[in-house]
């Protein structure tokens, strides 16, 4: 069973017909050729498929494409400003925040979405006082807030400083 949907991905409009079973991740990768969101576990556990979905970070492997007709999606590719890297992308390069690189697009998109959540004052499990107006984003906070992105090379020791640097700007 197929349905036609419209998606705006990294600023470009797309119209496509998809099987109702197609996930957003498969629509991006297999139908639109946008391969920066990666398929890791395909069960919402690893975070490699993370995109900004209508402005918020989400696992595209657990989203049915038909359910997001008309949505705006930003992938790691779309974060770049023309030929220049996004500050989070540059920080990952400078801090060597990866080894094999497979989880990296998901990590970067997730980190960008996460910093917006911090800016909005959202607490986390690592936040001592739920009623603080402003979040102090220390390393424990970064680790907790990024726990939905796994790195099998365990590059966390460099991922955390990369994110911290961007958060301090």
């Amino acid at each position, binding site marked *: 069973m197929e349905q036609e949907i419209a998606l705006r991905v990294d600023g470009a409009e797309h119209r496509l017909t998809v099987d109702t079973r197609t996930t957003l991740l498969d629509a991006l990768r297999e139908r639109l050729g946008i391969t920066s969101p990666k398929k890791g576990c395909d069960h919402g556990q690893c975070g490699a498929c993370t995109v900004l979905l209508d402005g918020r970070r989400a696992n595209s492997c657990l*989203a049915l494409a038909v359910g997001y007709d008309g949505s705006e999606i930003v992938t790691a590719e779309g974060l770049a400003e023309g030929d220049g890297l996004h500050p989070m992308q540059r920080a990952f390069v400078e801090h060597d925040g990866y080894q094999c690189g497979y989880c990296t697009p998901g990590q970067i998109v997730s980190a960008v979405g996460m910093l917006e959540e911090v800016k909005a004052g959202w607490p986390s499990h690592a936040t001592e006082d739920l009623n603080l107006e402003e979040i102090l984003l220390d390393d424990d906070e970064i680790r907790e807030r990024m726990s939905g992105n796994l790195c099998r090379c365990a590059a966390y020791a460099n991922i955390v400083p990369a994110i911290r640097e961007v958060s301090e700007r």
Partner: protein
Amino acid sequence: MRPYSYVRADDVDGAIATLAEAPNAAFLAGGTNLVDLMKLGVTTPDVLVDVRRLTSNRIEDLDDGGLRIGAAVPNSDLAADRKVRTRYPALSQALLAGASGQLRNVATTGGNLLQRTRCVYFYDTTTPCNKREPGSGCSALEGHNKYHAIIGASEHCVATHPSDMAVAMAALDAFVNVRGADGERRIPIEELHRLPGDEPQRDTILEHGELITSVDLPPLSFLSNSRYRKARERASYAFALVSVAAALDVEGGVVRDARLALGGVAHKPWRATKAEEALRNEPANEPNFRAAADIELESAEPLGDNAFKVPLARNIITRTLLDLSEKR
């Protein structure tokens, strides 16, 4: 995945009517559990009715001083809501202790209540499981049952309910508002989820076609002195071994009122009414907290791999009540 048709209804009543006509149809909200279950062939609906944009996504004050949470409110918005943080902190903490940032952004309030167990045998379609395939047997009874129930289980199913949020809501005396073809009903959250008995395939008392529209929290002021504590195998992003949601009203060193619920121990969020009874009108101190926990856990029947959950539950209950009594 088995083919299915996808329907976006115009309103709640339309969604309910569509489901009523299709015995093998399912509501879809955030999909963070359902889509996974469909990929694995555990759940095989032939029609999906998308209700994500149909129910309310607002958190509103009720006239009685309580709070109404729309079924479509994402877990992350609920956790971050200022009113929830100050009036029902255990609920914020429970939500923040569950899943990941990505999942909380999508998972809804209604869907969180209706998520299925994470018992590995339920997800493994090559093994017997009475919850997935009634009558096939329970693989966990004699299998890997470290993560399974210690209270209220049956010979047919020893699975636990996975939600953190629901445990906090159980302790906070929430009501779940439901609409079906025959109208609306208001269910105390303690009655929403079932014990497995000989029908473990039924997680809740909801009938086919009934849709959760909102959850109400009561206006009890001492619920602002509430807390959620969770023991798990990783620091983050793991289901509970045991968790506790508690609220305590202490005056002059004596417990006036208490609310206590446990997660990770039963087929439903376990409201610890016996412990609450034992706590009331007694001095707020560690021996009494420990004794109350023991009274609740008297009926525990651990399995081969999970006897550790009994002392773990006792210790977490005691520590959480101590935290709450020292705060005042």
